């Protein structure tokens, strides 16, 4: 039963809400206490108090109180609403949805609850639920265009394109006054509708709609690109060619436009002269354009290639462009091109050598050519490391302070397997330009490759924000610096510090959680901003988020580390890996160093914890946590001690593995790792599934036949524990796997 308060207390209750909304938590709590003094069992007040506690970071207390409030007053929508908010702020969206639905049942007319629920539904990709919510919201306020657009989005994301279009059209028909040309929401809504028509594959109608309705749209580039594409799709080649020419006039560095223009012009793929003429036209029109000069090297052959490549290299070397090799190395899949380019560079050197007296700037060209050749011989498809060294040394002789030259020298050392020398050389390159973060990052990366974690962090610290509490590592974590965390974790893993390695991989896991949650606010933000196409693009990308190679690498590292933990159980809590099979002095030395480092870290941790404990969190101090500011949660396990102490490494690996298999099923490394985890857990069917996936991806992969043999063996040993039917299925499937 809803409980009633006296007028005075009802007023007080309203102040509680106001204080909460103004983030005046202490005042809010005070007012709530006043009500509870007289009405200790007032559910709504208890809930509000819970909400404030939650905002102050006292999550557990908040949940306890909110639950008590619910048992006292099950019929209060406020109690359910608060319960939902608690779950939502603690990222348990499924439970939040359930609570919101209860609240909504009790208070069907609450816009706020309905809106919050809708956002949760789209966040969780419950599209049918989202459609329902948006329908209700539209009926409540049909005069708002946002509500129509939102419903269209709901249908669109659910795959019902036709209904999405209908909704948008219905709104358009209801508007009588012509929208202003500067009405951005209108402009974007029209283009959104156009994109839906195109997505249905009806380019005829899409073009018609674009030309009739979208001519004045403010996103001019989009209108031009869509029109060009539709014309091309419809085979209206002459118009398409004209449209792509207009696009090239805007941006002559976009290869897709050239390709589309060539298609529209109907030039045969082997008609090199005609193709070249198209690009030459734009090279002449835009003297500073790179694409028009470089792209023909992709399709030219023989003497045509030689002449064009010579002209291109000469231009690039004369200008001293350092990226010349990077922009051409993709041509190396063609043997002729791979052999021709260094010859041309040599010719250039011949012509320019020693000219420096006549032309003051020719050392620039000479340096660029030497640099090109150095990179050429360092590249894996044309590698000759002694020649590479020779050219780079010559380049350095010419310009001893050139960062790029020294950087390449470091790369050559790396390819020679001289990791320590490589790190040293990269640091030397760094010292030549201490204001450039790029070379600083590279130096740190090479230090990590050389297992110098502490040194690398100090190097990184030269560019992180000095005032960040906790130092460079906290700043790099806050700023979501994935590459550093990955390399740092891998180095700790090589050094045998399981705790810190796991810590880094889990940090990356958490960053991806944040990235996934980042979209939350945009479900409503984008509706207000009206940039619907960009929003749809975001939602679709977020659906694939954990397929990102950044995630894959760290997750695969984590899985393989957990596998080795399972195979070689540790004694110590933060187990430093036992010395490897070739356990020599160096390994023992490393072990000792790691142990020492860990001890120091633990000491620092203890001291930090003591310091934190002495500090009243409500009084502020180093970590400001004023009333109203979000409290930054303390890391309970900064060195991964607890992570490393796991008794179930295979179970922990699953958290990473499931993502690998779900989001990157076509990456064979993930499937191979999946087999390794499953076979150790005696899960033969999933192991077989991974094996079959690997087989389909690359039947010649050496791991495939090895894993097949192991699965067969494992099956033989497990005759008793397996259902005969299961065994039969697996065996018949295995029969098709070679080597099994």
């Amino acid at each position, binding site marked *: 039963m809803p409980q009633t308060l006296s007028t005075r207390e009802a007023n007080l209750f309203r102040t509680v809400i106001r204080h909460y909304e103004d983030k005046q938590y202490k005042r809010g709590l005070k007012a709530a206490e006043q009500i509870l003094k007289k009405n200790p069992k007032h559910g709504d007040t208890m809930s509000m108090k819970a909400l404030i506690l939650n905002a102050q970071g006292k999550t557990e207390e908040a949940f306890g109180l909110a639950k008590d409030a619910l048992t006292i007053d099950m019929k209060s929508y406020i109690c359910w609403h608060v319960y939902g908010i608690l779950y939502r702020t603690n990222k348990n969206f499924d439970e939040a949805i359930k609570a919101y639905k209860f609240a909504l049942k009790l208070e069907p007319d609450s816009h706020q609850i309905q809106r919050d629920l809708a956002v949760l539904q789209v966040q969780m990709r419950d599209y049918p639920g989202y459609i329902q919510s948006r329908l209700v919201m539209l009926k409540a306020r049909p005069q708002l265009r946002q509500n129509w657009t939102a419903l269209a989005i709901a249908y669109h994301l659910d795959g019902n394109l036709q209904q999405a279009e209908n909704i948008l059209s219905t709104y358009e028909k209801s508007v009588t006054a012509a929208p202003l040309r*500067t*009405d*951005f929401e209108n402009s974007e809504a029209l283009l959104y509708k156009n994109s839906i028509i195109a997505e249905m594959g009806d380019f005829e109608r899409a073009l018609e709609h674009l030309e009739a309705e979208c001519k*004045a749209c*403010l996103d*001019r580039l989009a209108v031009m690109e869509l029109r060009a594409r539709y014309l091309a799709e419809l085979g209206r080649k002459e118009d398409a060619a004209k449209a792509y020419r207009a696009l090239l006039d*805007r*941006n002559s*560095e*976009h*290869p*897709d436009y050239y390709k589309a223009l060539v298609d529209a012009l109907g030039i045969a793929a082997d008609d090199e002269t005609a193709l070249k003429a198209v690009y030459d036209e734009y090279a002449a029109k835009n003297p500073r354009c*790179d*694409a028009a000069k470089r792209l023909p090297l992709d399709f030219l052959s023989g003497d045509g290639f030689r002449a064009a490549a010579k002209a291109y290299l000469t231009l690039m070397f004369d200008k001293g*462009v*350092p*990226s010349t090799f*990077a*922009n*051409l190395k993709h041509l190396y899949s063609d043997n002729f091109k791979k052999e021709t380019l260094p010859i041309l560079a040599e010719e250039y050197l011949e012509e320019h050598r020693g000219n420096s007296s006549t032309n003051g700037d020719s050392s620039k060209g000479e340096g660029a050519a030497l640099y090109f050749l150095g990179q050429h011989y360092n590249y894996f498809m044309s590698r000759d490391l002694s020649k590479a060294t020779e050219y780079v040394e010559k380049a350095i002789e010419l310009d001893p302070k050139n*960062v*790029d030259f020294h950087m390449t020298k470091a790369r050559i050392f790396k390819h020679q397997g001289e990791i320590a020398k490589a790190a040293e050389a990269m640091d030397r390159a760094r010292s030549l330009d201490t204001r450039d*973060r*790029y*070379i600083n*990052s590279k130096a740190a990366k090479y230090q990590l490759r050389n297992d110098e974690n502490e040194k690398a962090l100090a190097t990184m610290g030269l*560019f*992180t*924000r*000095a005032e960040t509490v906790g130092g460079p590592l906290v700043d790099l974590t806050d*700023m*979501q*610096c*994935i*590459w*550093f965390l990955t390399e740092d974790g891998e180095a700790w893993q090589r050094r045998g510090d399981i705790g810190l390695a796991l810590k880094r991989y889990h940090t990356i896991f958490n960053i991806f959680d*944040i990235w996934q949650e*980042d*979209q*939350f*606010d*945009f479900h409503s*933000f*984008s509706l*207000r*901003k009206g*940039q619907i*196409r*960009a929003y749809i*693009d*975001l939602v679709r*990308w*977020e659906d694939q988020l954990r*397929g*990102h*190679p*950044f995630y894959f690498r760290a997750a695969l590292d984590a899985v393989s580390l957990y596998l080795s933990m399972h195979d070689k159980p540790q004694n110590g809590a933060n187990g430093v890996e036992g010395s490897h099979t070739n356990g020599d002095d160096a390994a023992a030395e490393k072990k000792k160093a790691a142990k020492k480092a860990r001890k120091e870290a633990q000491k620092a941790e203890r001291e930090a914890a003591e310091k934190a404990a002495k500090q009243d969190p409500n009084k502020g101090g180093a970590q400001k946590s004023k009333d109203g500011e979000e409290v930054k949660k303390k890391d309970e396990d900064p060195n991964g001690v607890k992570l490393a102490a796991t008794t179930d490494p295979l179970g922990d690996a699953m958290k990473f593995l499931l993502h690998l298999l779900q989001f*990157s099923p*076509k*990456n064979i490394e993930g499937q191979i790792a999946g087999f390794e985890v499953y076979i150790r857990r005696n899960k033969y069917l999933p192991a077989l599934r991974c094996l079959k996936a690997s087989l389909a991806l690359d039947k010649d992969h050496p791991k495939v036949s090895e894993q097949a043999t192991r699965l067969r063996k494992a099956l033989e040993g497990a005759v008793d524990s397996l259902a005969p039917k299961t065994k039969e299925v697996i065996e018949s499937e295995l029969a098709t796997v070679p080597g099994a």
Partner: protein
Amino acid sequence: MDIRLLRSSDIPLIQHANLENLPENYFLKYYLYHALSWPQLSYVAVDVSRPPKTPYDYPKIVGYVLAKMEEEPADGVQHGHITSLSVMRTHRRLGIAEKLMRQSQQAMVETFGGHYVSLHVRVSNKAAIHLYRDTLGFKTEKTESKYYADGEDAFCMKLELDFIREQLREEQLEEAGEGADKKKIKGEETAEDGENVDEGEAVGDVGRDPAKGSTAKADQKIKVKVGRGLGVGELIEKDESKHS
């Protein structure tokens, strides 16, 4: 190399390029905030020459410009602002930065009716200053002392975009010249000042811009509601009026 519009899926590698190149870094959400508020303004340069190793690879970003419209311009004039611009050291001297900037400037005028574009640059960054002033035509408005977290001053630079507006007008006249009356276009011009009424409320923080308001003393910072509270409430912007 390919110069094209930024997409959401590019953002992790844009953030990567930013972290590798520049000391001013941002949360992923701050990039999203740009990509979802002004998707027409931000461009990337992509290295298309690397063959993808798996079907899940994203194109490598070798340069980017992250740009926005000032949501509540102090002078009341619609204008764009460059939040961050960077080109990998390995891809310099190809004019990438200039090309990225020009694409962005074009869209600032076309899509959002921007009158000028502003930016901040470290006073010691000679290469960037050369690009802005000599190649693109920016003028130095003023020096903001200790703008950057490490205490360095910034030049506040500005480029009027009339030349793009002029071009656009000519193009529109040409198009309209094919039979239509020119008055219509003039009428539309004036509509440019028509407001986009945008009512919204804060939806939590959208990343942060640590390059801003990060000077020594906390009491020099004030919180300014940016963008009519459009979900960027936690952004701390420096109070520029103090320095002007």
